[in-house]
């Protein structure tokens, strides 16, 4: 579980995040949603520790991130997996080597066991053996995302962060990636935080949704509660399209 309390963050005297408090539960897909420029990426990067915060607490199962020194943060990060918007696979490594990389770096197991674990992760994200020896540039965007997920779960993380996991993917592949993230979260009881503004994703996998608007937490609830929300900003954001407006009306 990750608990954020009174988080504030500013860049050059401009306050981006204002007193945000939220609980991200284990085994659930926690989603941070909001319009572009609302501060959701800054919030995610602050929670991971890529941006130092001004005030507040970020507790990873009770361990406060801002209190940690560099070596403790590095140790904590071994419990963290991250899926980047652009996959961030290492260009010079093959698919298998990308997944093997964190294992070789941190696992004390013999190489055969590491390879077995990497193959298991790749198999879990439904990648066939034919692509294991291809480089990231030689595979599709969907396959790159799957490889990135496999790499993120290689060290059996307790926390998984996904930054815009569907960007650049066709709707069908996006759905597969969403379902994969959701399945893995439940299967391995991971605290997953997904940063997204893709409505299909939100409706598909949003167990716990936090709506950020102008740097403030404007709403929190589940994907079912979103239909009954009276928050105007949330409704304007979520039900911007006619299709979703119709779905909301039919639910009410």
């Amino acid at each position, binding site marked *: 579980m990750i608990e954020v309390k009174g988080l504030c963050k500013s860049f050059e005297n401009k306050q981006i995040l204002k007193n945000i408090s939220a609980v991200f539960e284990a085994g659930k897909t926690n989603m941070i949603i909001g319009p572009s420029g609302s501060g959701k990426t800054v919030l995610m990067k602050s929670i991971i520790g890529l941006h130092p915060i001004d005030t507040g607490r970020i507790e990873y199962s009770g361990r406060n991130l801002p209190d940690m020194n560099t070596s403790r*943060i590095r140790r904590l*990060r071994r419990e*963290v997996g991250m899926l*980047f918007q652009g996959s961030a*696979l290492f260009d010079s490594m093959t698919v298998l080597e990308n997944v093997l990389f*964190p294992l070789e*770096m*941190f696992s004390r197991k013999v190489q055969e066991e590491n390879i077995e674990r990497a193959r298991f992760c790749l198999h879990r994200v439904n990648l066939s053996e034919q692509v294991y020896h291809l480089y990231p540039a030689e595979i599709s965007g969907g396959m790159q995302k799957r490889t990135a997920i496999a790499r993120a779960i290689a*060290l059996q993380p307790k926390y998984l962060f996904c930054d815009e996991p569907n960007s650049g993917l066709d709707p069908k592949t996006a759905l597969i990636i969403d379902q994969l993230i959701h399945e893995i979260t439940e299967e391995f009881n991971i605290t997953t935080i997904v940063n997204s503004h893709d409505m299909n994703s939100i409706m598909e996998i949003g167990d716990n949704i936090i709506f950020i608007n102008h740097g403030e937490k404007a709403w929190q609830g589940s994907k079912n509660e979103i239909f009954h929300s009276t928050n105007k900003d949330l409704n304007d954001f979520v039900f911007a399209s006619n299709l979703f407006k119709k779905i909301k009306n039919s639910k009410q």
Partner: protein
Amino acid sequence: MWLLRDTGKYFLLMRKVFVQPNRWKMFFRQLPLELEKQGLQSLPIVIIISVFIGAIMTIQTKLNTENPMLPVYSTGLVTRDTLLLEFSSTILCLILAGKVGSSIASEIGTMRITEQIDALEIMGINSANYLILPKISAFVAIMPFLVIISMAVGLIGGYLVGVFSDIITTADYLVGIQYAFIPYYVFYSLTKSLVFAFIISSVAAFYGYYAYGGALDVGTASTNAVVNSSVLILFFNLLITQLMLS
């Protein structure tokens, strides 16, 4: 102000680079790859430039010192000492600042803008140490060999002038390159090359590591790396020459 800020950032980065690697196994896996990329792949350009410069220097020295008062060995001597003292260390490093420096800056810069460095950090890896230490170590280790090869090939270039033209006889040239040889010049040249190799690799890594934005910014980082490392090479050339030769 920016100079102070960048200097501070550079030393802070070096502090992150020069620590014990997360895994020595990974460091020693990277090292031969970097030796190959920065050393062996630079060999053709080093050989081509050195042989031509050696030949051109011999021709120009001979043509500009056509004086019966000057001894026959003067052309070989001047060619040798110029190669040993300046060309094979300073000029060669300025050329390699363009080739190796831009390669390091653009490689690390691309990793930065495609979030690969963030991915390393999220894994709990000291990205500066993992990416930069093997590059600096490899380039500093391979540079003396490149310099020695450059010296040898440059002298061969001068010899080829004697073989293929009648500007100078091979006998005069060979006497010249052996005359009044001072081994300390080789030591001086190798010492300089080690410092220059460190400057090229670390400055390029610095600009690549702090690149941000898009492809255009990686290009800018690469250009800045080459320009600034070239200026630093010239400055340290003056400093080391003053310290070691005066």
